[in-house]
């Protein structure tokens, strides 16, 4: 028990050190800081989805909707309301989370394939709204004409717009905040009821857990995290894209989570890293980059059903 605990602490420390030093070790390896920023943001999105998929055991195939809503929430705030990055993040998170809370009420009574289908359907509704409401959202062209704003910390200004490193560390700070809250919840009595529902829904019900209510809370929390990630993504690109709400984007998030390992907390971050880096590298070589990512996905699912991280953990043990 003790040895395992120490090992976990070492792995955790290694992850954070790697993230903290990413701008310095990525460049020599042929990467660049903005790529690391994308990894963090999409990794946070995959972890948010996995909060629901891996720890409550319900598969949402429409989570890109809340990601996209977060992006539009942040973009619209910067464009029309106020030139404030923190406000944009909060607005994006609230938009994604509140829409998730309302639709969640309709979704949580479904299970399995039906749950996935209903989440896709509601997700597509938001996609078409973003696509059609051109006057507000820019329609097919996406929302442009806003940019992230320097953060005023009183004593000095953090220039996240032109300095890639400053922006990376700002995103890392937001990522750490969100991931910290997520980990805290998972270790709480409420988090344990989520795992109970994943493990055995009937037993959970007969222990006195109102299962639908708990799934709804988990769904809503996951949408808040997703909206937050989406808001960060709008800041990364200074742009919000309707395709960010599309169900194919939801599929990418599911792929990241499953590929990395959905039973582990950090698995989806690894999945997102592999996905984003491969995409970045392969798309400069071939337009058919997705076939290679897809092939890797199939191989992982066939040979490492617990994902890449699950495979590493097993081979160590």
């Amino acid at each position, binding site marked *: *028990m003790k040895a395992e605990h120490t090992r976990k602490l070492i792995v955790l420390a290694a992850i954070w050190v790697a993230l903290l030093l990413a701008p310095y070790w990525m460049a020599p390896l042929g990467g660049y800081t903005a790529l690391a920023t994308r990894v963090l943001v999409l990794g946070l999105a995959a972890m948010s989805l996995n909060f629901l998929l891996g720890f409550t055991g319900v598969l949402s195939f429409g989570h890109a909707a809340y990601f996209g809503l977060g992006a539009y929430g942040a973009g619209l705030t910067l464009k029309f309301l106020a030139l404030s990055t923190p406000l944009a993040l909060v607005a994006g998170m609230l938009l994604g989370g509140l829409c998730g809370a309302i639709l969640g009420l309709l979704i949580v009574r479904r299970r399995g394939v039906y749950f996935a289908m209903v989440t896709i359907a509601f997700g597509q509704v938001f996609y078409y709204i973003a696509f059609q409401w051109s006057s507000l959202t820019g329609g097919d062209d996406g929302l442009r004409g806003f940019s992230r704003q320097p953060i005023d910390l009183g004593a000095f200004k953090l220039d996240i717009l032109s300095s890639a490193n400053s922006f990376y560390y700002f995103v890392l700070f937001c990522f750490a905040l969100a991931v910290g809250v997520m980990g*805290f*919840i998972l270790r*709480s*009595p*409420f*988090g*344990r*009821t989520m*795992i*109970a529902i994943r*493990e*055995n829904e*009937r*037993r*959970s*019900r*007969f*222990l*006195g*857990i*109102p*299962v639908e209510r*708990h799934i709804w*809370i988990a769904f809503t929390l996951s949408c808040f995290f997703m909206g937050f990630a989406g808001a960060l993504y709008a800041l990364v690109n200074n742009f919000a894209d309707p395709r960010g709400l599309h169900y194919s984007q939801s599929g990418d998030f599911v792929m990241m989570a499953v590929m990395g390992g959905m039973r582990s907390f950090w698995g989806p971050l690894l999945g997102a890293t592999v996905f984003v880096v491969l995409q970045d590298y392969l798309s400069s070589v071939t337009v058919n980059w997705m076939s290679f990512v897809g092939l890797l996905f199939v191989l992982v699912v066939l040979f490492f059903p617990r994902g890449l991280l699950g495979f590493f953990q097993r081979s160590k043990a």
Partner: protein
Amino acid sequence: MNVLQINNVTKRFGNLVAVRDVSLNVARGELCAIIGPNGAGKTTFFNLISGYFPPTSGTISFDGQDITRLATHERVRRGMARTFQITEIFPELNVFENVRIAAEVAGGYRLRPWINRAEAAKIHRHVEDTLKLVALETKTNRLVGELSHGDQRAAEIAMALSLKPHLLLLDQETYQITQLIRRLHRDSNYTIVLIEHDMRVVFHLADRICVLDQGKMLAQGTPKEIAANEAVQAAYLGTAA
């Protein structure tokens, strides 16, 4: 006073009447066994009591309050706990974690995003006491899915017990668990309703036996009365004895 009071309960599934006009009262501290041939409606009857589905007609009261239409988790909150014919546990969690979830829910912590040291210590003690009661205290770190069948049954009972129930519903426990059930009944004074196939268990343990046959209550009485009942012998024991 009756813990459980069931009046003329009927359950239909389409044309099939699984439970037909059954009434049953269970007094505090009583151990009541329900027996009957396969397909007699025992498990359906249990599902009605525990709220897995509502009855087509009839009423069910628990601790003097009508619970006929109440959801399962509400019944659990009022002190009803059950086990299943096919063990329902969290196989990928260890014994301690299985029982801790139950103890935390029963302690009212289920929506809490944090738990302080004192509360966690209280839960910890409660879980360990419960595990001692079912003789699993040496296996707290084992995954429940890897335990023997008998130990899995004991773990499921431990989860039910940690809910501090006023009524235990036990569905087809194995012969190995008999001693445990006897202790729970005689020493800890639990009120228990038990579905059982194994006649050794039933006649050994029960204060009262109810015989279900084709969804109807064929007879109720002490083990002696049931053994002497001709209708029961014809329907059920006749073939076995």
